[in-house]
Each structure stands twice: as C-alpha cells, then as structure tokens.
C-alpha cells in the first residue's frame, strides 16, 4: 500500500471509530454517566483477553459477544454494588472497573508472554498498524479494522434512529418515560451494550484509555456549542472526525502516537470551546459581564448628571473625578466614561468637566422616569417605607425598558410625582 494509502486508511479507521464513539458519547454526557463509559472501556479488557486466548487471534464475533456481556456485567455489577451493597456510586464503579481491568491486564500479559505483544498497546492502541492488516473485498485491499468499524458505525446510527424517542425521553425525563410505559432501565442497558460494542471495535485502533476520550470529549464540546440534541450529535461527530484527521497529521509531524495525538487534539478543541463558545464560553461570558458592568456604570453617571440638571439647571457638568466616582471608580469607571463619550451621550463641557449631550439628556430622562415609577410601584404595592424604595429602584432602573415603563405608568395611572415628591419625567411624547 502506498504512503497516501496508509495515511488515508489510518484516518478512515480513526474517523469511523471516533464518529461512533461521539454519537453514543452524547447520550453518556447528557445522562451524566460518562464514567460508566470509562468503566466499560476498562472492563472489556478481560473479555477481549479471553476471546483472544480462546480464538488465538482477533476474531470479530466472539469478541463482540464477549464485549456486550462484559459491558452489561460492568453496568449491572456497579449498580448492584451501590444499591444492594450500600456502597457509594463512584466507589462501586471504581472497584468494579479497576478489578476487571487488572484482571484483563494480567490475562493480556500472559498472552503477551506467549505472543510477542506489547501490553501497553492495550492502553493506547495500534492504529498505525491497522492499514497493514487487510482483507480482500471485491478486488480491493481494505483494512480489516474498516470492515469492523463501518458496520459498527452503521449499527450505532441505526440504534439511535430506531430508539430516538425512547433515548430522548429517558435521557431528559426519566420519570415521564416510566409514566409512558417506557422502561428507562431497558434503554439504559441497551445503551451500555452499544457502548461496549463500539468500545471493542475502537479498541484495536485507539486502545481502552483513549476510547474514553473519544466517547466523552467530542460530546462535551458539542454540549458547550449547542442546546439541541440533533445539532449536538452532528457537531460531536464532526469534532471526532476532525480530531482524527488533525491528530493523524500532528502525529506524523511530531513522529508520535496517533491515538495520543487524537486525544490531545480533541482536548485542544474542547479547550477552545470552553473559552470561546458563543453562549457558554468562559471568555464570552466574561465579555458579556464586562459589557453589562460598563453599561450599568454608564447609566449611573447619566442618572447622576440628570439629577444635577434637575436641581441646578441644564448644562450642569461634573468634574472628571466626580464623574469617575459616579461611575463606580477604578479602571472600569474610566472605561464607562469613555464609552459614554464614544456613544455621544457625554461630552467635555469644560476642559475638566463632563456634561450631558442632548442624547444623553434623553437617556437620563428615561432612567429617572424608570427609577421613580418603580419607587411608586414599590411604595404602593409593597408598603415599603419611603427610605427603602430608593435603593431597589436604583438597581431595577437599568432593566426597565420603554415597554415596561409605559406598562408601569399605565398601571399606576400616570402619576405626576414619586413618593418623595419629585416630579416624574413625562414620557417622551409629552415633550
């Protein structure tokens, strides 16, 4: 096989496995049983070892059967241990899968003693070699791994399509599922069986530990990027495939383990999503918080200036330091002032004092109107004493848009003055 042929097939093997894992992984992540996937991928090891010992080679059908059995066994044992043995869930999981994994390692080392097999490959796979083990299909040399993984991927897609409703309901509302007569338990064990099958299929390519990466990380990344299940499945698969491509090239470039690079790649993609995801990303949230903080501080300045104009006449200005203090002080205060100037709401009246522009006056007017309407609302409906209404109104005024202001005014029958006796700025239509 040519160089490109090797590369292509390796990537294909990786992509197929990762896609299948990503699909199932979405359900694992949503159901908060990611670690059960982790456990199963460790626990199938003895099953594989036994199958290998019995068959003398990697034989597909007995291995898959063995995998399903062991997968279900793992899920069942840890469940039984936690409910019947009264052991906490994570402890029971830990005990079950480490024991099975240890058993598997012992068996494999025994096998490796007779066959020249590196026991470490159990953990990180042999994807580099998969293109070399080919089978003749219709005159083409196709890696055996592809012939295993492609049907498994198809079965996975079929499983999800067939049980779409059941998986959906039992994932998001187990109670409803039971009420509808769907056995959440049956769906759970079917899912576990599928995870076991996919794990065994991917095992040869990426080994047991890295299957976990492929199960969980693309799904978790997709979860950060979307709230819809269909999209989540699609994005997870895309990420899985992308990480197999990028991981392969990265591994070739640095001359290192392909499976390891795939895990690192998908981790890097996850990291990017954590920071930059449009709605749930950390940096994005930070920016949004900053934006809100600046807006509120700015509005505080506008309100302060408007009040000053009310008592001292139009055209009043605040010295820069006082304006900064009204904006809450510090760097954020200065930023807020800059922002107001850039928005055309504030301007330098003298070299050292800031005042409202016409637009700023309108904005201040709306704020004060909102503030005083809310004061009345609180005073009338909650019997709060007069000195208790200013504080909450100062906070709420930032969130009362024009619609809400008019609704309040209508509700309170357009009052002329607030509880403190100050005039409520008329709505804009009144001039």
């Amino acid at each position: 096989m040519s160089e490109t042929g090797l590369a292509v097939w390796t990537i294909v093997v990786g992509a197929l496995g990762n896609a299948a894992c990503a699909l199932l992984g979405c359900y694992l992540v949503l159901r908060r049983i990611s670690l059960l996937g982790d456990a199963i991928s460790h626990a199938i090891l003895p099953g594989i070892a036994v199958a290998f010992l019995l068959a003398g080679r990697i034989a597909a059908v007995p291995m898959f059967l063995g995998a399903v059995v062991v997968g279900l066994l793992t899920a069942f044992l840890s469940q039984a241990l936690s409910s019947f043995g009264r052991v906490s869930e994570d402890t029971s999981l830990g005990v079950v899968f480490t024991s099975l994994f240890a058993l598997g390692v012992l068996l494999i080392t025994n096998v490796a003693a007779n066959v020249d097999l590196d026991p470490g490959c159990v953990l990180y796979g042999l994807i580099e070699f998969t293109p070399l083990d080919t089978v003749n299909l219709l005159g083409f040399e196709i890696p055996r791994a592809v012939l295993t993984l492609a049907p498994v991927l198809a079965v996975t897609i079929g499983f999800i399509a067939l049980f779409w409703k059941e998986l959906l309901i039992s994932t998001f509302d187990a109670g409803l599922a039971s009420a509808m007569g769907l056995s959440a338990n049956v769906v759970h064990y079917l899912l576990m069986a599928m995870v076991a099958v996919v794990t065994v299929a991917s095992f040869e390519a990426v080994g047991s530990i890295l299957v976990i990466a492929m199960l969980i990380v693309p799904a978790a990344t997709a979860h950060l990027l979307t709230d819809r299940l269909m999209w989540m499945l699609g994005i997870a698969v895309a990420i899985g495939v992308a990480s197999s491509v990028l991981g392969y090239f990265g591994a070739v470039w640095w001359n290192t383990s392909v499976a390891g690079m795939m895990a690192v790649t998908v981790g890097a993609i996850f990291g990017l999503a954590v920071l930059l995801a449009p709605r749930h990303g950390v940096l994005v949230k930070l920016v949004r918080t900053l934006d809100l903080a600046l807006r509120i501080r700015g509005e505080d300045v506008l309100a302060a200036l408007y009040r000053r104009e009310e008592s001292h006449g139009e055209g009043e200005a605040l010295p820069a330091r006082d304006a900064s203090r009204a904006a809450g002080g510090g760097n954020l205060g200065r930023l807020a002032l800059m922002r107001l100037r850039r928005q055309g709401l504030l301007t330098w009246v003298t070299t050292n004092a800031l005042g409202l522009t016409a637009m700023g006056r309108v904005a201040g007017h709306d704020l004060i109107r909102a503030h005083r309407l809310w004061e009345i609302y609180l005073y009338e409906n909650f019997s709060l004493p007069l000195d208790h209404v200013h504080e909450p109104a100062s906070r709420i005024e930032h969130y009362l848009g024009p619609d809400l202001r008019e609704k309040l005014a209508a509700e309170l029958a357009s009052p002329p003055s607030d509880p403190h006796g100050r005039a409520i700025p008329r709505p804009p239509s009144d001039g």
Partner: protein
Amino acid sequence: MMMTLTYNTAIVLGGTMLLGANAGLVGTFAVLRRRALTGDALAHAALPGLCLAFLIVGQRNVPALLTGALVTGVLGVMTISFLRRMTRVKEDAAIGIVLSVFFGAGIVLSRLIQNLTTTGSKAGLDSYILGKTAGMVAQDVVWVGGLSLAVLVLLVVFYKEFQLVSFDPDFACSQGWPVGRLDLSLMGLIAATVVIGLPAVGVALMAALLIMPAAAARFWTDRLSSMLVLAAVLGGVIGAVGTMASASVSKLPAGPVLVLVGAVVFLASLLLGPKRGVIARMRRHLQFRREFAERSLLIQAATAVNIPPWGSTNRPWNGFTTEMVAETAGWPGSVVKQRLRQAERRGWLATTGDGRHEWTDSGQTRAAALLRGRALWKLFLLEMPDLAGSLADLGEESPEGVLPPELMAPLRAKLEAMQARAGQGSEP
C-alpha cells in the same frame, strides 16, 4: 511454601506495605468525600508530568519525575474544579475529559521520549503505566516511609478539622475554619500519595489502591477513627500479599496483582462485615422478618379470642383453632400453620392433637404486651400524626422506651380511658 526473604524482597515488601497503609489512610477521606474517581483522574493526569520531567532533566531522576507527576496531577484536578464551577460541564464528564486528554498527552510525550532515547530507557517510563514494584530500592522505601509518616502526623494533628470538613463542611465554615484550605491540603495529601505510588502500582491502577482498602474498611465500622486504622491495616496487608504473590510468579506485573488482592479483600469485607456486610444484613433482615411474623401471629391469635388491649393475663385465655386465626388474619392456610408451629417451638403456645392451640403463661404475657404496644402505637399515629414521621419506629413492639415520657403519658391515659369505657372488663 517457605519463602526466603532476600534483602531485595524485604525492601519491596516494606515499601509496598507502607504505600498500601498510606493509601488506605488517605483513601478513607477520598472515599468518604466521593472523590474516589478524582483520584483516578489525578493518577492518569500524572503521566505527562512524568514525561516532561524526564525530558527536562534528561535522565531518570525519581524525585524529579515525581515532582513533574505531582504538578500535572494537581493541574488536572484543578482543571476538573474549574470546569465544574465555570462551565456547564458536569463533574463526571470533567473527570473523564481530564483523565483521557492528559493521559493522551502523556502517551504522546512518552513516544517522543522513545524516539529520542535508546530502547533501554523506554522501559523505565512504561513501568509507570502498569507499575513495577521490583524496581524499588531502599531509597524509594525511605521516600514512601517518610511520606507516610508525614501523612500520619498531619492526620493526627488535624484530625478534628479533617473530620468536620469531611462530614459537615457548612458547619465548619460557619465556625470560621478555613474549609477551602483544609480541602486543598487533603487533596494535596491524596495527590502526594498517588504520585508516590505510581512507580509501584502504575498510573492505570493507582486509583484502585486508593479506593479498595478504605471501601473495604467501611464495612467493618461506622467510626472514622476505626475506619482509618482498619484502612491502613488492610492497605498494608494488600501491599504485602500482592507483592508476595507477584514476586512468586515472575511474569506478573505488580499493579494488577495488588488490585486483584484488594478486590478479594473488598469482596470479603462486603460479605462478612459485621454491621454493613451483606451476610450480616441479610441475617438481620431474616431475623426481623421472623420476629415480625411471630408478633403478628400472637396478635392475630389474641384478637381471634377477643382479647382487648388492656386484657389481663391473670386468668388463662381461651384456646383457639387454626381456622380461627386464619379467618381473623386473612392469611393463607400454609402461612398460618407455619407460624403456629414456630410459635409453639418458641414456647408461646401449646398444641393439642386436634388442631386446637392453648396459650402458655409466657405466651399470654407476651401477647398481652404486644397487644398493648400496638394499641399505643395506633393511638400515637392517630393523636400525633405530625410527629409520626420523626419519632415513630414501628419496628419496636411498643412506644415505651421509644417516645419520650411526656408523649407517653397522654397515650397511656387515653388507653386507660378506652378501658374504662369498655367497662373495666378483661373477660376474653
């Protein structure tokens, strides 16, 4: 089989015993605080650190390797914390992500190292994945011993603090204790233990050593101090037995053998633990069912012959037939017969040949007490239903001794009033 203890074997034995004991101590807190799998993530996250340290130092310098392992391990745990707190990623997914990605990075680095060096050095780092106790030298044992001693001292000195932080962190916080820092130091102890254990047990299986002794010890006691001691002992035993077993069969890597020994110990504790073990619980359960069946029978039999709750035992009560009991209780015939037989065996009843049963003295006394107790419970549930949830323990024969005296007095009075209304009669 007599095994001659060579110097080397003694070293390894000492080392793994100390390691196991340490893991047991520290693992107790990990298990109690549901951090068991975080320990697993920590172990896996240590691999890249090992490799990086090797790359930086250029040779296999164990303290440097372990420091590197500690750094990335702790980094991994901090990542899990960050993900859990600042994103919508849940704890289980966070653990899985850190575990697999860090481990993948470790594999990448170890392969890079493999490329740079001769095949001889490769085996050095690979042994950290599955463990290799045979490589232990006296120096390592000193390290492990030192660390174990430090852990022990810290646990003894800060026992109260760690205990409270583990079981009631909110209360500890309200008392002004630095919960965050205590938590961190606990995590630090766990991290140090995990890292020290890596050469012996390996990355993949270290979590097991952390979990199993503590989880096994849990079945034997409800007290933290006993659990700590027992976990340490069990950990030491697991270390010793595992090492001997893996040494006697040369091809077996130590890590898996230790884990399997641990699993056996865990299983044994699961079954045999005196209070929380499965066998003990089943026995208690069966005992209670038998006891309850017996009580039910005596009550039904007494009801069948119309004994009121205040009935006196001065005069012998009437005898009864099996059919009478069956009719009163509504039980199937076989159940009635079996329970009657049981009662006879226990000496509460005596049977005449023709299906009639007579009360013995002790049987009458017992049945009278049961009737009275049940009546008092009924009154309690009727009169004080809002207290029932917290105070009722219907497994007990009677509220006497369960409810406080100020609640018992009105109940007794009520019963006496009922007795008076029924005309002081105790005629069955």
